[in-house]
């Protein structure tokens, strides 16, 4: 799934990113359902999950609130049956983005192999959403089933 660039939350707080394309451009989805901002698992199995998140700031967007940033992504699994939500993967970096520089850019990539059950849901949270790069080759996430659970 690729980020829907027209609907990115603002601010620097940690937010849930729920606005993704699932059928446009490079985005594709099969055997999984995308609804209310979460990717739901339809079949038990071992899946490889991955996310690529790019942050950028250009001087023409005005000054940053602070030069000391922590740019993070959290990939979370929600299991409705036991009312539990846990982080599967996290990545990112503290950054010093000096005010004198014209442009700043930073990308994070996380990936991992997880046992998922039908009904469980995957969602993405990031810090500093207003710095997200809205291009489809920059901010995207996905999953593919590797094999069944024996």
């Amino acid at each position, binding site marked *: 799934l690729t980020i829907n660039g027209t609907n990115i939350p603002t601010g620097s707080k940690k937010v849930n990113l729920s606005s993704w394309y699932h059928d446009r451009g490079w985005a594709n989805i099969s055997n999984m359902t995308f609804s209310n901002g979460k990717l739901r698992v339809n079949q038990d199995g071992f899946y490889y999950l991955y996310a690529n998140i790019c942050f950028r700031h250009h001087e023409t967007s005005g000054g940053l609130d602070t030069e000391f940033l*922590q740019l993070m992504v959290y990939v979370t699994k929600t299991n409705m049956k036991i009312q*539990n939500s846990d982080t599967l993967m996290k990545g990112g970096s503290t950054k010093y983005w000096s005010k004198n520089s014209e442009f700043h850019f930073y990308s994070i990539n996380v990936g991992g192999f997880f046992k998922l059950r039908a009904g469980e849901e995957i969602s993405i949270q990031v810090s500093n959403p207003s710095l997200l790069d809205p291009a489809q080759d920059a901010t995207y996430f996905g999953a593919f089933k590797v094999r069944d659970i024996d």
Partner: protein
Amino acid sequence: QISPRCNSEKHYEHFGRCCTKCDPGKYMSAKCTATSESICLPCGPDEYLHTWNEEDKCLLHKVCDRGKGLKVVHPGNQTFPRQCACIPGYHWSEDFEICQRNGKCDPGFEAENPSDLWLWINDRCSILRRNKESSGDNFINTHMSTNSASQAYEDTLLLTKEEKILSEDSCYPQGHTCGEADP
């Protein structure tokens, strides 16, 4: 023949039968069959399950990472998740999952061990700030009220998320960001 209402909190349907889930602290190593009940085994060390469940594995207790300024306030057990809190002088920032240095209180105002209160609640904090601005008073001092549901550990009051109670007098130094509960 209407099968008994099954999918309640403690039962699940399998092979047309209504079987019992595993109680908190246990995971389901085998589902029930036509002739046998579910097989439940206790969670291992460092694991827990806080509800009746059909999970094939327990959840892992989180690490109260001293390297992020955290300490254990409740070690957790097979049915209750471990609880961490920031060491004195710091409060939990949910945004970055770290302990952030507390802002300084003005002279004459002293937060009553705010660092031990992992209960800095984002939403309440902003509400207070609004009231605070309107009331023109810069800081309000914190005093936690206790109630039956809370378990006291050392000198920290521990409330589950649902029972977040914060009285009017919290020390919210100007421009200070609050963290969500439960690091």
